[in-house]
């Protein structure tokens, strides 16, 4: 009796593993689409192609939400991983908030259509690349948390590194913007978009900090 229940448990475990992996895939994919979308905007402004990317990120976000809720419900309904389910829940929700930042930033581009002088394009693109890399490292660290706890720190220090890089680029960019002859309103607008992108890297670091603690808890 107990044994057949355990076998059923193994089947459910498999599907749950897949759902968690899918969720992480969506986050990683939305990062790539985000990078692509920002570069498209820098090149041509708000085009049909840009809106297409925005829609894509929207879809990814809602799929990820659904997956996250499904995983969380199952973890609690079936009292799986009683030791770490609180941590897994926290991790998934925090990762989801990173995805929300991608989506929010793209919406802002779409609604506010900021006028970005070509002088700053290279820095905006660099900042975007770095922020997305931070998120990708975070995704790898999260995968390691589930499968290979010892490797979590291998990815973690990269997240920290990219976040620092992002800070440097964003500071440099903001200084350049405010040192220019643009009207203050334009400067403020441009700064908002530097922060939209930089926030992604900051958030990734926050999540990474939490993940470090979760990982320590599991190895003790």
């Amino acid at each position: 009796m107990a044994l057949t229940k355990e076998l059923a448990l193994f089947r459910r475990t498999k599907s749950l593993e897949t759902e968690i992996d899918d969720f992480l895939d969506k986050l990683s994919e939305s990062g790539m689409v985000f990078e692509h979308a920002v570069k498209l905007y820098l090149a041509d402004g708000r085009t049909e192609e840009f809106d297409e990317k925005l829609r894509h990120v929207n879809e990814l976000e809602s799929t990820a939400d659904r997956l996250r809720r499904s995983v969380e419900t199952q973890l609690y309904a079936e009292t799986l991983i009683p030791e770490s389910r609180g941590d897994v829940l926290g991790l998934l929700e925090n990762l989801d908030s990173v995805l929300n930042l991608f989506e929010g930033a793209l919406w802002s581009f779409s609604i506010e259509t900021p006028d970005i002088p070509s002088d700053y394009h290279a820095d905006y693109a660099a900042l975007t690349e770095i922020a997305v890399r931070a998120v990708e490292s975070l995704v790898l660290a999260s995968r390691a948390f589930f499968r290979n706890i010892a490797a979590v720190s291998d990815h973690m220090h990269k997240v920290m590194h990219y976040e620092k890089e992002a800070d440097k680029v964003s500071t440099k960019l903001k200084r350049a913007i405010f040192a220019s002859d643009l009207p203050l309103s334009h400067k403020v607008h441009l700064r908002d978009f530097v922060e939209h992108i930089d926030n992604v890297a900051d958030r990734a670091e926050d999540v990474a900090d939490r993940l470090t603690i979760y990982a320590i808890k599991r190895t003790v």
Partner: protein
Amino acid sequence: MDIAVLLFLTSGLFLGWALGGNDAANVFGTAVGTQMIRFTTAAVICSVFVVLGAVISGAGPVETLGRLGSVNALAGSFMAAFSAALAVYVMTKFGLPVSTTQAIIGGILGWNLFSETVTDTNALFKIVSTWVLCPLLAAGIAMVLFKMVTAYLRASRLHLLRTDAYTRLGLILAGALGAYSLGANNIANVVGVFVASSPFNDFSVFGVATFTAAQQLFLIGGLAIAVGVLTYSKRVMLTVGSGLMPLSPVAAWVVVVAHSLVLLLFASEGLERMLAANGLPTIPLVPVSSSQAVVGAVLGIAILKGGRGIRWNVLGGIGMGWVLTPLLAGLVCFIGLFFLQNVFGQTVYRPVPYVLSEPVLERLERAGMKTDRLGELRGQTFSSARRFRQALGERMAPDGDDEAKLMAYAEVDPMAIDPARLPDLETSRLSAGQVQAVRGLTGRTFMHTWMLAEALAGESGEWRPREKTTKNKAHNKRLRKNLDFVFRTFRVGE
């Protein structure tokens, strides 16, 4: 079987219930406490395997307890078991983790004191030494196992969820093993004292298998433990699960497995035979405390983690409980026996007199003892083991070996080969040759067990013990068991 017998057995069942309520927590506590297994699942698995373990491999440790002091009257057994159960219950009330083993041993020692029986210091030492050996062994096994498991988990890179599922399955299997060992090892505590005065007879199941009197006792004891598990263990399980020391599910699994292995080591007759056959030293078959095994295993893991997280005051409390439990049980038993005998007029022990008659002296001479040193003690009768030993001590101060011989040969245990009881042999485990030898002695009476044993050996080679080597140990033990059975069957006044 009369009502009084059932009434007396109830104290054994009370003890079984208390043991089920407490010790089941050692087996499944960590699993239930960490929410890895639901209580009902744990309780059902535990109950089933406790009963199986008790009936199938319960025989080993019972003998050691039997040797410590054969409580030879039912009312005495009742009091020994009752005092132990009471001690367990009181200790639980005070929140001290209990050891049923120690309680029952305290009870037996109380009975020995009251009935003026001499305690077999060898058997006592054997048991007390395992109280140190058992937690140490559990700690060692837990450390090795934990290292292995964590190394495996690191190398295999299992998904967190998969690890979780495997741990769950592992906890169920280990728990079943633990419950089996608990039944096998601790059944001795529950009904061991009743074996010498068992109200049951061996009976044969369709001539295929024999269901011995002891096994029938074990089944009943096992059921009592199971009831304890189902009715009373939930709260204790939850306390153990989160109270002793915070454990991860994997560590919980290691603790349960180490605990089970240790209990099985101390209960396995098969292992003893295997070790003996290969000329290795054997592990004493002694009822050990599952609480001690669990505490040992947890400490082992704590040490691996650099000794952090050990709650020294809890450990001190546990150590204190280990000292207090046997004392309390012994005291309660002694006082209880007094009341049972003097207020309720029950026979709480069958007096065992000692005599230095001519045949005894002759037998001692044959065993290589100078009996002239006994002086005026020759021909005297003593009313109890203690008086006999006292007299010996005053007269000749024998060394341990001589004293053991004197005690063994002078003990009066009258037996008559009553033809009416011969049919009982048919359903027993005796060989045809052995039964034939007993028949040959029909009508004769014997004052001492050794007399009957020698008479039997004279009748048939199948009753002769082999030379004392490790390989022959199992054979001689079987012989001893059969002899005990014959003694029990033909004892006068049973």
